[in-house]
C-alpha cells in the first residue's frame, strides 16, 4: 500500500512537471500549429533566472517567490521575440518552424554554456520545501513535489479562467476555432498570436522555476523534457487544455508504474508503445475540436 501510494504520487508529480511544460506548448501548438523546439530553452531560462535571483536575494523562500513572476516575464519575452523575429514568417510551414526553432534552441544552449559555464549549477531550496509532509495513513509526500503539483494546478486554473472569462481568452478561443472567421470578425489575429506566445513561453519559465526544486540546472535540461511534453500535447489533442491535463498525469503515472515494475529504460519504451497504440484508437488525440476539415 505504501509503495503503491508512493509510486502513484511520484507519477502524479512527474505529471505535474510535464503539465507545466505542456500547457504552454498546448497553447501555441493548438492556436498557431507551431512546433516550438526552443520551448525547452525557455524552461532553462526560467531555471537560470531563479539561479541569478538567488545570487542577489539571499532568502531562498523570497527569491523563489520573486523568481516565479520574473521567470514568467523573462521566458515570455524571449518567446515574443522569437515569434516576431522568426515564427510569424513561417506560419504556413509548421515543419520548417520545428527545424528553425531547433536551431534557435541550439544557439540558446550554447549561450547558456558561455554565460553560466557548462557544469550544472544548483539553487538552494527554501527550508519550507525540503521536508516531507505526513498525510493520513502513515504516508509521506515530499514538500517540493507538493509545491510543484500546486503550482501546476494553479496554472491550469488560472489559464482556464482566463480563457473562459476574459476578452483575451475569448479572442484566443476564437482564433483557435476558426482563424479566418475570427480575422474577418475583427479579431487582431497577429496580436492575439503574439500574446498567446507570451503566455505559453511564460509558462515554460514557470516550469523552469519549478524544476530548480527537483534537480540541477544545466544548458541541456530542456531537451529531454520537451519531447515528453510534446507527446502530452499530441496525445491530449490540441485546442483544449483538458486533454493535456489528463494525459500529463496519465503519462506520469504510467511512467512511474513502468519504472517500478521494470526499469527506467523499459518504462520509456512502454510509454512510447502505449502512445502509438493510443493513436491507433484516437489519431487526433484525446479531445479535438470538431471541424469540417479533412485533416
Amino acid at each position, binding site marked *: 500500500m505504501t509503495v503503491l501510494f508512493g509510486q502513484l504520487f511520484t507519477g502524479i508529480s512527474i505529471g505535474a512537471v510535464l503539465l507545466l511544460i505542456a500547457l504552454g506548448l498546448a497553447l501555441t501548438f493548438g492556436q498557431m*500549429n507551431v512546433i516550438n523546439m526552443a520551448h525547452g530553452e525557455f524552461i532553462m531560462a526560467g531555471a537560470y533566472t531563479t539561479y541569478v535571483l538567488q545570487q542577489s536575494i539571499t532568502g531562498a523562500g523570497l527569491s523563489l517567490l520573486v523568481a516565479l513572476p520574473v521567470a514568467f516575464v523573462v521566458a515570455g519575452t524571449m518567446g515574443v521575440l522569437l515569434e516576431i523575429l522568426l515564427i510569424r*514568417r513561417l506560419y504556413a510551414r509548421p*515543419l520548417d518552424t520545428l*527545424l528553425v526553432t531547433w536551431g*534557435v534552441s*541550439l544557439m540558446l544552449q550554447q549561450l547558456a554554456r558561455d554565460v553560466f559555464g557548462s557544469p550544472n549549477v544548483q539553487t538552494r531550496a527554501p527550508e519550507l520545501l525540503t521536508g516531507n509532509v505526513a498525510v493520513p495513513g502513515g504516508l509521506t509526500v515530499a514538500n517540493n513535489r507538493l509545491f510543484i503539483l500546486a503550482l501546476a494546478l494553479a496554472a491550469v486554473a488560472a489559464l482556464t479562467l482566463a480563457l473562459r472569462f476574459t476578452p483575451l481568452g475569448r479572442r484566443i478561443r476564437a482564433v483557435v476555432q476558426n482563424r479566418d472567421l475570427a480575422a474577418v470578425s475583427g479579431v487582431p489575429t497577429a496580436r492575439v498570436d503574439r500574446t498567446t506566445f507570451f503566455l505559453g513561453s511564460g509558462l515554460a519559465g514557470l516550469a523552469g522555476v519549478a524544476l530548480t526544486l527537483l534537480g540541477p540546472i544545466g544548458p541541456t535540461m530542456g531537451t529531454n523534457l520537451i519531447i515528453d511534453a510534446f507527446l502530452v500535447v499530441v496525445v491530449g489533442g490540441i485546442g483544449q487544455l483538458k486533454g493535456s491535463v489528463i494525459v500529463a498525469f496519465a503519462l506520469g503515472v504510467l511512467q512511474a508504474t513502468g519504472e517500478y515494475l521494470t526499469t527506467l529504460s523499459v518504462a*520509456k519504451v512502454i510509454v512510447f508503445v502505449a502512445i502509438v497504440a493510443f*493513436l491507433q484508437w484516437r489519431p487526433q488525440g484525446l479531445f479535438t475540436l470538431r471541424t469540417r*476539415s479533412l485533416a
Partner: protein
Amino acid sequence: MTAVTPAPPSTAGAPAPADIAPGSRSGGRSRLRAAAGFAFGAALLFAVAPLALSDFRLALLAKYLCVAMVAVGIGIAWGRGGMLTLGQGVFFGLGGYAMAMHLKLADAGPGGMPDFMQLYGQLDELPVWWRPFASPWFALPATVLLPMAVAFGLGSLVFRRRVRGAYFAILSQALAAAMVILLIGQQGTTGGTNGLTDIQGFFGYDLDDPVNQRMVYFIIAGVLLALLALARQLIHSRYGELLVAVRDSEERVRFLGYDPASVKLVAYVVAAGMAGLAGALFVPAVGIISPALIGIVPSIEFVIGVAVGGRATLLGPVLGAVAVAWARTALSERFPGTWTYLQGLLFVVVVAFLPGGLASLWALARRRDAGPEQSRRGWPAPARRRASRAEAHR
C-alpha cells in the same frame, strides 16, 4: 489504381509542384545527362579523392559519405514525401549495432564473448538475441531489413491512421529518445553509453591496416553511388510523382483513388533501409557505434545537411550532408563553441529563408541564364504558398 496518371509537373493552373527537377520527364537527354553526372561522381570518388587525400582525410570522407547515405533517404522521405523524420538515427543505429554485434562476435572468435560483457555484467553466456548475429548470413541482411521492419511497423500503424506532419515528426523523435534510453539502460548486453567500441576486424581483414581502410572507403563510395542510382530511379518513376503529389496534397491523391498511406510507407521504409545500410558501413569506417551517435541530436543533424543541400533534389542532400559534416569537423576542432552557434544559425537561415537549400540558388542562377520564359519551373509558386497557409490553419 492504374487508370489515373499524375499530371505532369508544369500543367498550368495546378500548383506547380515545386521541386521536380526540370526535364524530369523529357526522357533520353536527361538520362544521358544523369549517366554523365554519375560517371563524373564515380571518377571523383574512386580516382580523385583517394589520390588527393591523405589516409586520415579519406577515412573522414568515408564517415561523411555514410552520413550522406542517410541524407539520400531523408531526401526521399522528407524532401519528396513531406515526412519530416527526426528519428533516422534509430535506423542508422539498428544497422550499425547489427553490424557491430557481428564484428564483435567475429573478433571474439567461435564461442567467445565480446570483451565488454565480462566487464559490465556477470554474464556467463551470450544473450539469446546476440546469437544469430554470429552468422554473417543473418547479420548482414539484418543491417538493412531490421530498420526496414521497424519503419514498416511504425509507419503502417501511424500513416494509416493519418498521423502526419508535426505529429509524425514528434513521434519519430520520441522513437529516437526511447531507443537511446533503452540502449543505455541495458548496459550489460548493449555496452551502454560507450556503445560497441574497439572493433578490430572486418570479415577477416584487419581494420587498423590503412590498405583495408581504403577498401572500406571504396565499398562505402560504391554503395553511396548505388543508392543514388536507386533514388534517381525512384524519384523519376510514376511512384516518385505520386509521392510528390501526396506531399503537396494528400487529400486530392486520396480522392483520386490512391492510398496515400502506402505511398508514404514505401518512402519511409526505403529511407530507413538506407539509414540502416549507412549505419552498417559506418561501423567499419569509424570502429564504433554508440548511443551518442544515434540519439535525438544526431538524428536532427542528419536533417540539417539535407536542408542545406536542397531537400527535394537528388544530389542536394548528399552534397549538403558532406559539406555540413566537413564544416563541423573543420570548425569544431578549432572553435567548439562557435560551431554550435553556426549550426544553429544554419538551421535558422537555411530553413527559414532558403527552404530550397543551396540547390535553389543554383536553379535560380541557371534560370537567369535561360531567360524569363523558364522562370516558373522549379520554384515554390506563390499559389502553393497560399494554399498551404490555409491548410496549416485548418
